């Protein structure tokens, strides 16, 4: 196996990926490197091209131009070899509604050409690990959204993939299920699985990924560790609502004493926000500073930077939310009911 010579220890390597859908340029020269054994988070707003990138890397879609290797195999020319070593959990659950959880997992195992007895044991083991043992013999149709996500993830793990693709694994999940899924992904990473994960949430990328790649309009606009990105964004955000609009400037002046960069004033809504560091003590300091300046406030919050803040910092504009993609003319699971 010499195919990997060009990307010695990259589990995933993409160069200049371009993909059009009619007039829409979904990917516009995307480059990506995911070192073996790491987790990379692909972060971007709706319509940024995350799913398109994952579909190309998992051999479901051919790029218009550019090339990519996964585990050293070319995703177009050696698709079958790629499929042998990857697991994919798409944005929409890719399991059969009428089959039970156990039947879904054994079917997948058989299609990996693994022996029936081994597959049955492995299915049971995964169902237990994902808290689905009680529902193992019920059709997936009867599962809740969180259970579907878990059985879908289990299906992609049947053959112990070395490289796992997770496309927005927690979108639409309740906070509890989200935490459960994060824990599972954490375990997989500790076991040595390489993971490429897409998400719209900075918090999720921060929590799970070693490296974060921010994409917008099909191209990379920033990448680095979450600390590096956070430095660019400027840590937490302190946001206040000033009661008397005529005193906005005094409020901003008071806040600049505690913030890392000059505060951002929104005169229309009476909001003043500023990047801060130092956690809750800074909140106390800010309230004190405002108090001694005699500025009355209606509200004050300290929040983690969001994807919007990343975009604001990186591009100077807020992330443009594109409407969810229209159902594809040739069905490929878009626009289905799935939370």
């Amino acid at each position: 196996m010499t195919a990997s010579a060009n990307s010695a220890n990259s589990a995933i390597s993409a160069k200049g990926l371009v993909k059009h859908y009619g007039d829409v340029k979904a990917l516009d020269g995307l480059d990506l490197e995911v070192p073996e054994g790491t987790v990379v988070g692909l972060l971007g707003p709706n319509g940024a091209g995350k799913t398109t990138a994952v579909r190309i890397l998992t051999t479901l879609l051919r790029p218009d131009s550019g090339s990519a290797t996964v585990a050293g195999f070319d995703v177009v020319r050696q698709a079958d070899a790629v499929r042998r070593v990857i697991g994919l959990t798409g944005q929409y659950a890719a399991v059969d509604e009428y089959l039970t959880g156990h039947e879904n997992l054994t079917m997948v195992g058989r299609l990996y050409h693994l022996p029936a007895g081994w597959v049955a044991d492995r299915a049971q083991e995964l169902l237990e690990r994902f808290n689905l043992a009680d529902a193992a013999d019920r059709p997936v149709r009867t599962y809740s959204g969180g259970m579907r996500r878990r059985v879908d993830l289990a299906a992609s793990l049947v053959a112990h993939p070395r490289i796992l693709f997770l496309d927005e694994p927690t979108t639409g999940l309740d906070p509890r299920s989200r935490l459960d899924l994060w824990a599972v992904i954490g375990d997989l990473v500790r076991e040595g699985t390489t993971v490429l994960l897409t998400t719209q949430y900075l918090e999720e990328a921060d929590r799970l990924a070693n490296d974060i790649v921010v994409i917008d309009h099909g191209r990379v606009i920033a990448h680095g560790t979450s600390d590096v990105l956070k430095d660019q964004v400027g840590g937490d955000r302190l946001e206040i609502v000033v009661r008397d609009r005529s005193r906005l400037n005094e409020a901003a002046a008071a806040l600049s004493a505690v913030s890392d960069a000059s505060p951002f004033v929104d005169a229309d809504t009476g909001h003043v926000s500023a990047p801060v560091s130092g956690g809750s003590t800074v909140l106390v300091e800010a309230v004190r500073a405002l108090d001694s300046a005699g500025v009355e406030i209606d509200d004050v919050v300290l929040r983690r930077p969001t994807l919007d803040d990343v975009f604001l910092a990186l591009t100077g504009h807020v992330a443009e939310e594109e409407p969810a993609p229209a159902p594809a003319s040739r069905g490929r699971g878009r626009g289905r009911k799935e939370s």
Partner: protein
Amino acid sequence: MAMTSPPTIALPPPMHRPVCGWGLHDGLVVARRNLLATLRNPELLFFSLIQPVIFVLLFAYVFGGAIPVPGASPEAGASAYREYLMPGIFGQTVAFAAASSTVGIAEDMSKGIIDRFRSLPMKSSAVLFGRTLADAVRLILVLAVLAITGLVVGWRIHNGALLATFAFVLLLLFAYTVAWVGVWIGLYMPNTETAQTAGLLWLFPLTFMSNAFVPLEGMPTWLQTFASWNPLSALVLACRELFGNPTGQLPGQTYPWPLENPIAYTLISCAVILAIFIPLAARRYRNSTSH
């Protein structure tokens, strides 16, 4: 290569390639999935069984006496028509099963499970083989229910179990063949609703421009020519001969080759249609899922 395997890899040794190849193995796995889905959807199964039964009753009692069967004695009347009719209904039923293949594959393609299949190292055509196999297997049940209904309304097998079994094998082969045409059509359907309608369209001329329900003698000449070369006519005639039912053909008269050699023509047609539509459908499947 520089890659180190994760420490927990516990994969068993891979299976030996089966003698018949992975294509059949994977096709059977997918077929099993489709059959399980059928069993979990008993309402659909029930109505797919009821429909041909209603057909038998309608034709047997509504048209029964009105359609004379050439070659049958006048006093046989309605009962001759019922014997003549049953192979036609069998033929019509296996042909119309193609519509459920059209809908089935269109539905598959609109679901997330296709992404799962396509990310696995399986033979891609297994999705299509699994669909057509499952549809043909389901037809065994439909044919059994039909045969029982036929026996109730007076249809009989006169030539013994062996030839009758051969007739059912021909029917299933034909079902499997048109299922591939149905699948090919289904792969062009933008959604299940369209598939539901479009999947039926071609089946009406196929079944009604044949000898399935009425003898060819009453048709205009151009239609007779079409009907004589329609593979469904050959299938139905072959079944009539094998079951020992009235054929509607007059002794001493010469007919076009397919009607003189209905079994051979049925086998040849199935082989030709499969040879054309399996590659067409497989290519369409590959293209329609990777763009």
